[in-house]
């Protein structure tokens, strides 16, 4: 199939070149947006089926199809913690027909990995941030703590005895735990799992004492208190856990961890294609059905302009870079 594609593109290369020239010309006169989108748009999901990204991505694809007036096809391209799928988009033509949805790993990977196949800030740009979701701090049921300050006090009284779980090196639950250690001076051991869900049996039997978990991962275990939720990591309280204090409220001022998701495109998209795509996304994100679907997994829809998105991306990049460097967490 691939070779057929290569062959076809070889045959049509001269035609394509001519067309590309025409498009570039048209773009400068603002005609591209009138024709865009004239064929289905591909939304790459850089993780395996089954996670939050898969669910949010497919929901967005469904609603974006309506607001964009073209089919948006969600496609899983998993591998290397999201790098493989993001890379295919970074290398594709910036025509608005190939976009990717990513989580904070997109800003963590460049700091953590010794080599990257693409340059995040040169080869990709934000179309729009699309969602925001706090993490929830959960503790083992045997642990005698009811809130964040008690956890800190307990951890300080038992230095080096506590374990915290994560979904793997460099994932948001891991770095949130590191940030917590750096902010409080608590000494706890990081125990990575392949997904946060796998850590719950060990947390129920008190082999793991606490974790910064995604809300979707924690819900099955917190509804009947098999593990105890004690705080959420947004600056505002979570609608899923309205009774829980935020970490910020409980004394660690400004402590915020956001499991955000954003949609990215290869750099150099014509301005009118960008604005059309951003507009269609913004509209899709206001759809009550989408908002309801997001809320079921603890995710809040949030649209931004490309500029706001880029500024947010940079601030997240700097924030996690500092945590990784201060904590001396480094791959290879």
């Amino acid at each position: 199939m691939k070779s057929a594609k290569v062959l076809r593109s070889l045959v049509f290369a001269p035609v394509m070149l001519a067309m590309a020239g025409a498009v570039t010309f048209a773009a400068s006169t603002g005609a591209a947006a009138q024709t865009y989108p004239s064929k289905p748009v591909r939304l790459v999901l850089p993780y395996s089926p089954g996670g939050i990204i898969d669910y949010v991505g497919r929901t967005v694809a469904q609603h974006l199809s309506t607001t964009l007036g073209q089919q948006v096809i969600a496609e899983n391209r998993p591998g290397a913690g999201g790098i493989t799928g993001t890379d295919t988009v970074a290398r594709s033509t910036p025509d608005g027909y190939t976009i990717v949805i990513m989580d904070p790993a997109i800003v963590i990977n460049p700091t953590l990995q010794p080599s990257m196949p693409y340059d995040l800030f040169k080869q990709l740009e934000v179309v729009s941030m699309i969602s925001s979701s706090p993490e929830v701090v959960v503790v083992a049921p045997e642990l005698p703590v009811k809130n964040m300050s008690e956890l800190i006090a307990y951890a300080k009284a038992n230095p080096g005895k506590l374990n915290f779980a994560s979904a793997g090196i460099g994932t948001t639950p891991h770095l949130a735990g590191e940030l917590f250690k750096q902010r409080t001076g608590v000494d706890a051991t990081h125990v990575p799992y392949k997904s946060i869900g796998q850590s719950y049996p060990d947390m129920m039997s008190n082999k793991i004492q606490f974790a910064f978990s995604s809300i979707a991962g924690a819900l099955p275990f917190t509804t009947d208190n098999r593990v105890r939720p004690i705080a959420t990591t947004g600056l505002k309280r979570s609608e899923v856990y309205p009774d829980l204090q935020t970490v910020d409220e409980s004394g660690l001022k400004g402590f915020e961890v956001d499991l955000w998701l954003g949609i990215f495109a290869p750099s150099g998209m014509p301005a009118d294609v960008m604005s059309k795509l951003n507009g269609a996304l913004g509209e899709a994100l206001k759809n009550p059905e989408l908002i309801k679907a997001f809320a079921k997994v603890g995710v809040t829809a949030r649209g931004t302009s490309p500029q706001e998105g880029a500024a947010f991306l940079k601030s997240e990049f700097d924030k996690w870079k500092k945590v990784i460097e201060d904590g001396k967490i480094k791959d290879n």
Partner: protein
Amino acid sequence: MDVFSNIALGFGVAATFQNILYCALGAFLGTVVGVLPGIGPVTTVAMLLPISFTLEPTSALIMMAGIYYGAQYGGSTTAILINIPGEASSVVTSLDGHKMARMGRAGPALGIAALGSFFAGTVATFVVSFGAPPLARMALQFGPAEYFSLMLCGLIAAVVLARGSIVKAIAMVVLGLLFGLAGSDVNSGVRRFTFGFQGLADGIEFVALSMAIYGIAEVAINLERKASEVAVAGRVGSVMPSWADIRHCIPSVLRGTSLGSVLGVLPGGGALLASFAAYTLEKKVASHPRTFGEGDIRGVAAPESANNAGAQTSFIPMLTLGIPSNPTMALMIGALMVHGITPGPRVMTDRPDLFWGVVASMWIGNLMLVVLNLPMIGLWIRLLRMPYRLMFPAIVGFCCVGTYTINSNVTDVTVMAFFIVFGYLCLKLDCEPAPLILGFVLGPMMEEYLRRALLISRGDPTVFVTSPISLGFLIAAALLLLVVALPAIRKKREEAMVE
């Protein structure tokens, strides 16, 4: 409410027209994707997820469960017919199953797989009904140390499982372990054995490895043989297993079912071990074990029953604890949450219709698999009548497309090409690939559990002997080693191999 009224409630829910329809649809889709390489149950469930949001949650879960165990069954069909195990659990089935097909006994092999699975499914349904809460508590007793010892025991059993030279079997297990280590290390994120290839960052793809060694390398070996020898495989023979076959298999099915039911409850890889363990057990306890690996029908019946029983009881940790045993179940949990149902101990009391409906549908689904598949056997074996010169290129094409479509990753196809050469050499050198596969699958899990156990114990290795469960497995592993190492037994074993 007692168990029987619960089961009655379950059948009341599962036997409505709508739910039977979804159950049949799931079982059928599952069989189809199980037969097709490259598209597995995970992808299928993921694609159907948006549709399931519009369904009644019970119907949605019934359909997904059908896909899951249907795929297990479909995977065995290809393992028997063309020696391509699509999933780790059907690797063992291909050992004797494909040999049977080549002897013209594909019909009985497929038949016993269906009947054994059905029996195991029936028993497992009852196990789930009666034993869910206590079995779920047992699963919670398993921490990293216990899982490590269980895996170690399984791996040592793999050496016993091998035919021929023990030295070769150990070499293959160790090679399998090394191949399994490729990719990103869970604890440090360091990439091992990737040689700078991005495509190897997640390790070697199982399907690429197993298709290369079992599917294509076998083709190459067959091509070397004279046409007359190969043509034997085209002989079809009887379609259904004879009554003698069935009677011969009853003890194996019973042992496989009980082993599978118990191991399936462990979410950390127990179900995967079930078919391997059942096969090993059969070789140890069955009469005339030397025919194993040469097309013994019991070598199909035991792992197939274990596999299906394990697939079913692995719903226990999911439905009662909310802990998924595999990615397909993680998706099912996701689907339930979207419906506002949080999987966990409360499901049984809050939504008895859902819990018992799904349990009852498993039995209906298994019945459907038999009904769907027994008539299909005639069709499947007609496939074997196809001349091998047409079959070979079809298998190679099938494998390449299948491997590529898993991750849309060209590296996987390259990896497959490497393992075709490797597998060919192994077969030429008379090295069994089964221990390699087991080492490959269990190695990374073992490492993960070992390091996690040591991380939590702060490097203290006594955790493995202070836990009674872990100690039990370690003792069992030591006994197994002793059996293999005892010179008298070994001599006898080698004598048996000469024949």
